[in-house]
């Protein structure tokens, strides 16, 4: 158990939609991760400064600071932290658009998630 605890990877979910937060948290917990979620970019930044995370799953369109800005701040304060963009926004559905703001298309997962196996594999690869 303690070994397991030590090995347990920690994921942060940032999304303003409470249902998405709940469902995603449930799913990833069932996958065996330790999961925390926050409703805003500011809350996320506060948490990231105090705790270690292996992965952040970030929504793009949020009130206040949006996902894009949050990622730029993460790159400054925790350069090593990996992240997945989880977005339903139309602006990021095409690879060139993402490249323009320095985001690797492989790091993007569009809402709604259709292929959960693929998603699970991606998360596992990112945290290891």
């Amino acid at each position, binding site marked *: 158990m303690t070994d397991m605890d030590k090995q347990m990877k920690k994921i942060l979910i940032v999304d303003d*939609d409470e*249902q*998405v937060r709940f*469902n*995603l948290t*449930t*799913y990833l*917990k*069932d996958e065996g991760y330790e999961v925390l979620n926050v409703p805003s970019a500011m809350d996320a930044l506060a948490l990231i400064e105090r705790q270690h995370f292996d992965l952040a799953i970030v929504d793009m*369109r949020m009130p206040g600071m949006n996902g894009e800005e949050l990622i730029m701040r993460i790159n400054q304060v925790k350069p090593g932290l990996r992240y997945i963009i989880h977005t*339903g*926004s*139309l602006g990021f*559905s*095409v690879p060139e658009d993402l490249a323009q703001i320095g985001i690797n298309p492989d790091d993007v997962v*569009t*809402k*709604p*998630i*259709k292929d*959960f196996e693929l998603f699970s594999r991606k998360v596992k690869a990112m945290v290891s």
Partner: protein
Amino acid sequence: MAEDNNQRAGIRIIIAEDDDDSRLVLQRILDAAGYSVDVASDGEEALKKARQNPPDLFISDILMPQMDGFQLCRYIKQDEVLKDIPFIFYTATYTDSDDERLSKSMGAARYVIKPVTPDKILQIIDEVLKENAKTQAEAEVPLDGPSQLDAMYLQSVARKLNEKVRALEEEHLALQQSEEKFRRLVEGISDEYFMYSRGIDGVFTYVSPSIQQVLGYTQAEFLTHFSDYLTDNPVNEKMREYSERIGRGEKVPGYELEVYHKDGHACRLEIQNTPLLDGAGKVYAVEGIAHDITERVAAREELDRIRHLLKNVFDSMPSILVGVDSEGRVSQWNREAERVTGVDESQALGQKPAQLLPQLQAHVAYITEAMKDGKPKKLTGQLYRSGDTQTYSDIMIYPLLDNRVNGAVIRVDDVSERVRIEAMMVQTEKMVSVGGLAAGMAHEINNPLGAITMGLQNIQRRVSPGLAANKEVAERLGLDMEKLQTYVEDREILKMLNILRESASRASTIVDHMLKFSRKPEKRLELVDLEGIINSSVELARVDYDLNKRYDFRNIKIRQDCEPDLPEVPCIASELEQVILNLLRNAAQALEENIRQGAAAEIGITMRRSDDHVRIEVEDNGPGIDLDTQRQVFDHFFTTRAPGEGTGLGLSVSYFIITDTHHGRMFVESEPGKGARFIIELPTEDVAGRVTKTLST
């Protein structure tokens, strides 16, 4: 009277009279009375005639050239042969009683003062002849000899001559006054006119002083030949002909001349010439009046110029411009009107405009009203149909006003193209707004859809026995996981969950396509894999459904045949997708009948490389399109569907996208009963590259 005449026959009378008229009158009277008459115009001639053939009576005037009446009388009374012949003075000028006494003393029988009636003179003559027969030469004793007679005679003649001189002076004065009056008239004319006389040789003999105001020359300077002043203006060409006619004595109408002013500038004159004829009818001089009409001609030319300018402006307009008079009949008809109608201005003048321009037929009352109100009116986008063609016109009526309405100018612009483009823009606009709406909807739908799919995923996992956490909770609650699993399966809960998940997935696919379709076109051609676009269009078509369920792709077999290794083609993927989707929808609608009759319904999409372009064909095995329809199929607003079912814009927008944005070609091949094939040809990179370069430079 006839008796008298018989008695008088053979009686000879000599009349001495210098005035032709008086002599003739008297001669006629005596002739008629039966006398034999001889005439003489002075005393000398009378004396000569009397000596050759002595008369029975003399009748003589007093004042005559050569030899006067007194002298004649004296010679006769001294002549041995003639002295007894009675002598009558017949005179107008002698009114003095001394004259009468003188004449009596000279032996004259009577002294008659003119005028007397013919009867009276005849009566006097008869009396004198009778007296003469009785008294035979008992001549009155002369006065006191010849010297006294001479003195009386001289006095008398001097008086008479004074009289005559005074009369002549009066006559001369009157003539002088008349001439001065005429001169004042001639010389008084000024500014624009001068008068002249010239000989038949063409040299001026007189010009009135106003020549100086008109042409700058003094009167003396101008007395040369007229041709010295002529310019080379063609207007002067008539001059020679007129000159010749005047020379023949013809009266010619006024004509124009151009001559040099002394300072060198050209003056335009209007000439009125009158030939002067001598007694024999020969022209000896020409008189005329010249009128300076330089300003009038300049004004006329300016008017002509403005009229020309107006006409040119009128003609240069790209609009149809029709001037109508107050009766509403064509008074102006510009070149565009000629071009559009094929009716010349000369044929159009005087006609009703609506007869020449059928697009005005529906608006005749409106035009009349505008002219009545005197206010400009405008009608926009008026539809006019003629057979298969329909045109849209803007019609403007500008009433012409001075004091009252004096007609109007009607302007007609063919705005069909503008109306078409506007309609196309409306369509694009609609699509853009639908696209914008789709984008917003997609985002809003995707979040709850995400919650649904992930929730379903979580539920499925939490009812399955595989998950360690499930076991822990089940054990704590004493729940048999195996039984729960069986229950869920028996009650088909898992199946229900799968249906929910599939439905959510389908909804998500639709939203994805909507998003792709609504992406704002960047209007930048990019190299795109055509097959991908075709695939995505077909996929879009499959999920496309019509609210009225008039077609359904599930009943249609879609066959795709794509040549391998097709070159990429520069295009805007979303627009090309829109075009293909539109073709597929049209094909599906055409196949409705096949489906209803249970016949095979097929759409074939083929792509081939052909020279410097890629050819995409979309064909169906529907009823086909007849030739008439084929001609109009790309026209805006053309639709074969019932009202409300089609905009008639789909193919025209597609046509625009292919030909304008992609520099390609789009056309249709079809025969009734043999299906329809729409062909799109898109230039490959080389060609398009050149085009793009040309556009950007």
